């Protein structure tokens, strides 16, 4: 039993055991439970990073042959099942493992104050730890059967981390779990087909060409799984609903960070390790990626509920990752994975900020809020950094990863396939999506933090330090990842995952950051030295919008123009009637079929007896034929 095995043992068992023990601790010791969970997650983080930095000699580990599973009993598990219990500890898996543990620590730190004694969110900490455990196990699984086991379990924990206290929230919980559970079922089909075709079910052993229909089905099944988990079009519809009604810490934990990490991790696996993609499949993936970016951000623009707005952005950003990974080049892969990390950072930060605002104000509509920047300065600064970052403003991390993806797309255009020829489409979609993201985050920032302070919000203060510390850490990391992206972050973390990167253009993130800092300082000094106080006052220019002074400064109303724009209005109308929601569409079809069958079941005895005879006669005819 060497040190790797000891480390693994802690990673694979400690969160599970702790999570199960916490079930039996009464709910009145909520703080104790929270602190225990935090301690466990810290230990997990320590061991996960040790595993990451120390490296492993042998990437594939057989849990049975190494004696891991038989440690406590002599030999309950025969060696023959060893191939079902394979771990894969390559760079990517270990990297994802560290990130999972890292986000667990931050969310638990935040939760200790945020989650109060609410009866309908019972066993919160147990489920957070079990989520941590299952996520780490998912990331490390090499055997697809082990993978689907943990992956499916994550759907259950996701369901248990939202509280169904009223009609809307229980509907959201139901929808989430049905969609996730459905995708898991479909993935089982894909895994079964892979096993049938190749005779293997370990990710490291699989290399499949997507040449014929059955292989394509297998690919599609696995793609649906990863898309649903990550929340990409058209399987994304649970994300906004979940984000709207779940506690912010749950949203920050699962849909914003862990589900993205795992979904994109699995997408990387299927696109790079399991399947060899043909040009047409790349085209499909890129179309879905581009659609995800645009559709979700268009929906985000018209939202009034800031948590739902964030939920739509959690979808939109997935489009960039999907596009990056769909490109299939090293540049695209690095961009996609880097964007995945960045997105997890700023999006969970944004959810935590939203949770803080909601906790202190008790409101979740943008128009009811405003002017909180003075009362909640730390939350404001952090949110601003996150918002700029998600909108791709240099020198923050969102810019860095989007920039790499843009470069990847341009590089991709040099190829000859049909998807390559359309590179300008992917690029323009990505850039437009970024611009619209900025537009909707102006609404978010100005709606909550800027503008005239409302009298009803005078009492609001800053949140507890345990709640703003995670946000601050995330904001610092966002800045750090952006400033040192090309110098340090990409060579140190992402090149081991994908291969060496050669940028097309000249790009040095630190130098650019320096330039930006210098220009800001210059601007401020020009302001102070020359023209302080000598400006003219005029009407506010708002781009031709009617300024309704009577309502005060209300950013959300500006976005009504988009909604009422002739070309888009029908689409928004249909979207609100849920015509595009794959969940509602299939639900209606299912219920229609159900009604047809139910109509036949009127419970009249002679009918029932008739069916018996009909069945009997039908069987006779079948046999005679």
């Amino acid at each position, binding site marked *: 039993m060497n040190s790797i095995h000891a480390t693994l043992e802690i990673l694979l068992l400690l969160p599970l055991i702790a999570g199960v023990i916490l079930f039996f601790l009464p709910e009145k010791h909520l703080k104790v439970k929270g602190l225990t969970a935090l301690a466990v997650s810290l230990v997990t983080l320590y061991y996960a990073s040790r595993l990451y930095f120390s490296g492993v000699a042998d990437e594939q580990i057989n849990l049975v042959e190494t004696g891991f599973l038989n440690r406590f009993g002599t030999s309950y598990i*025969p060696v023959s099942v060893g191939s079902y219990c394979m771990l894969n500890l390559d760079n990517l898996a270990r990297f994802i493992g560290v990130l999972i543990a890292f986000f667990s620590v931050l969310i638990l730190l935040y939760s200790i104050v945020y989650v109060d004694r609410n009866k309908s969110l019972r066993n919160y900490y147990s489920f957070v730890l079990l989520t941590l455990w299952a996520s780490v196990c998912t990331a490390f699984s090499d055997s697809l059967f082990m993978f689907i086991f943990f992956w499916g379990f994550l759907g259950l924990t996701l369901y248990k981390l939202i509280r169904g206290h009223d009609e809307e929230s229980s509907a959201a919980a139901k929808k989430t779990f049905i969609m996730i559970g459905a995708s898991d079922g479909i993935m*089982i089909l894909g895994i*079964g087909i892979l096993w049938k075709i190749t005779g293997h079910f370990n990710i490291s052993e699989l290399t499949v060409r997507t040449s014929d229909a059955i292989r394509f089905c297998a690919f599609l099944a696995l793609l649906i799984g990863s898309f649903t988990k990550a929340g990409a079009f058209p399987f994304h519809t649970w994300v906004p609903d979940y984000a709207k009604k779940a506690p912010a810490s749950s949203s920050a934990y699962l849909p914003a960070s862990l589900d993205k990490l795992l979904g994109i991790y699995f997408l990387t696996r299927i696109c790079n390790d399991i399947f060899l993609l043909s040009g047409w499949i790349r085209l499909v993936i890129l179309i879905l990626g581009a659609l995800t970016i645009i559709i979700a951000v268009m929906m985000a623009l018209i939202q009034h509920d800031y948590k739902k707005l964030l939920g739509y952005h959690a979808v939109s950003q997935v489009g960039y990752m999907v596009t990056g990974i769909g490109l299939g080049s090293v540049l695209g892969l690095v961009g996609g994975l880097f964007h995945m990390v960045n997105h997890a950072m700023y999006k969970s930060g944004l959810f935590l900020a939203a949770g803080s605002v909601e906790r202190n104000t008790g409101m979740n509509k943008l128009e009811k809020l405003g002017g909180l920047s003075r009362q909640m300065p730390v939350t404001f600064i952090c949110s601003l950094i996150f918002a700029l970052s998600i909108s791709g403003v240099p020198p923050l991390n969102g810019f860095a990863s989007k920039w790499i993806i843009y470069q990847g797309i341009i590089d991709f255009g040099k190829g000859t396939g049909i998807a390559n020829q359309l590179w300008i489409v992917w690029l323009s979609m990505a850039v437009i999506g970024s611009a619209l993201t900025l537009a909707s985050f102006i609404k978010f920032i100005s709606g909550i933090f800027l503008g005239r302070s409302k009298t009803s919000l005078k009492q609001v203060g800053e949140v507890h330090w345990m709640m703003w510390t995670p946000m601050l850490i995330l904001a610092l990391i966002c800045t750090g990842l952006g400033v040192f992206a090309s110098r340090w972050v990409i060579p140190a973390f992402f090149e081991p995952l994908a291969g060496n990167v050669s940028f097309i253009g000249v790009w040095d993130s630190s130098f650019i950051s320096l330039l930006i800092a210098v220009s800001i300082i210059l601007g401020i000094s020009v302001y102070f030295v020359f023209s302080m106080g000598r400006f003219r006052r005029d009407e506010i220019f708002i781009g031709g919008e009617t300024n309704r002074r009577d309502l005060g400064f209300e950013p959300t109303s500006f976005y009504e123009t988009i909604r009422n724009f002739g070309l888009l209005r029908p689409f928004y109308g249909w979207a609100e009637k849920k015509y595009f929601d794959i969940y509602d569409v299939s639900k209606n079809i299912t219920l229609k079929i159900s009604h047809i069958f139910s109509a036949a079941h009127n*419970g009249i005895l002679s009918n029932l007896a008739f069916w018996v005879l009909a*069945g009997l006669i039908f069987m006779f005819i079948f046999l005679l034929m």
Partner: protein
Amino acid sequence: MDQSIPIFVIIPLAASFFISMVGGRIRGFGKTLSVLVFLCTLIIALSYLISGNHASMVYKIGGWEPVGNIPIGIYLLLDPFSGFMLIIINTMAFLATLYSVNYMTKYTGEKYFYTLFCIMVAGLNGVVLAGDLFNLYVFLEITVIASYALVAFGTEKEELEASFKYQILGGMATALILFSIGMIYWYTKTLNIADITKMLASSNDRMLIQFCELILIAGFGLKAAIMPFHGWLPDAHSSAPSPISAMLSGVVIKAAGLYVIFRLFFNMFEITWEISVLITAIGTLSMVVGVFLAIGQWDLKRLLAYHSISQMGYVIIGVGMGMMIVATSGNMALASLAITGGLFHLINHAVFKGLLFLNAGAIEYRLGTRDLNQMGGLFEKMPLTSGTSLAASMAISGIPPFNGFFSKLVIIVAAIQAKFYLLAALAVIVSIITLASFMKFQRYAFFNGQAEDYGKDGIREVPFFMSFAMVVMAVLCLALSLLMIPSVRESFLQPAVDALLGNNEYFMNLLNM
């Protein structure tokens, strides 16, 4: 051990007579005795399992030895497949009676309840042990006649109507079964299953045999409530008292229906392609149509009842695929995998569907309603019911780490391996709709705000014995996942599968002892 075989029938039968005689005089006699009786039979069944002796055992009633290799007299036979069923029957019977200790207090005439319950279980134990067709039929009738009475136990209009329908269709089943047995007796001149096998092997009248097979599928299909023969089930299972619903859905349709179909078609008849296709087709039909019927229901127990039809479909397609592979003399390991999946799902379904009916009973016990629209917000009021029902719902929807996930996984993977891609896809779709309908149950019963004011005293968790039975079953929902571990599977599930597949062994044991 082989001397203890008749105990499975004798003790419950004797208990039922004692309860009907003494039960009215001594308070709590019925419940105590029946709980103890089922605990006792459960322990004996488990001891057979744990003994590791997987040979079949025969008990010859009255000590009548075969004459010239022709069996005369009544033989009871315990092989691993019967043992597997005995464990399901007696575990469920034990937990259901434990649950009834509190639950049945709201009914009058408790002693009749326990009397009938014991008769029903005695019949079920007899069905899985019987070695000849006629006794199988007799035990079957003992079971269903007791269950007619138990379905009508509430004696309200709805219960009586359900029981009436159940009796009429049950009567049709009886007629069909008896007719087919008569045909077989006329043709082979014997009733002993092993002897019939021998006779049929040397015959070449395919039409006649297939005719008997079809009649038997229809007759036992009625008992098992598979698709065109399911008409009685939704009414009967939803109107019966909840522990009886749990027994009917969890055990009776399996032991009196599926067990017999599997036993006869594997061990008595020769497996043919047409019959195996037919059985799989019926299973698929039940699986698909059952779930569509279930999702539209608002009566909780009716929803669960339709799911029983659908879940039986899974069991049948698992075993049916195995039959098709055997019929085409394909890969036996694959056939074994498919049948393992089917039987694994059978035991899993017994546990989680039993538990779901007990949960429905717990809700009805406190709220007095089965309508999902009138529930809501019970998550805080009934945490144990809520938690156990979540476990059962996850198990039936196939969410890891609960047992249903593994059995469905095995069935789906076996279907793909055998190139039945359509079956695999249907199994997944049905699984998704199952999840959707159980999410509906969870949402409307336990969350969703409170539908109405539940009165001043509020709703509390159910009493101890009811909670205890539910918790034990929820733990079983998790613990049965361990059957995936090969060493556990080989000592419990695999012998049952081998007993079905090794069709020679069964009658060898009956004849040459």
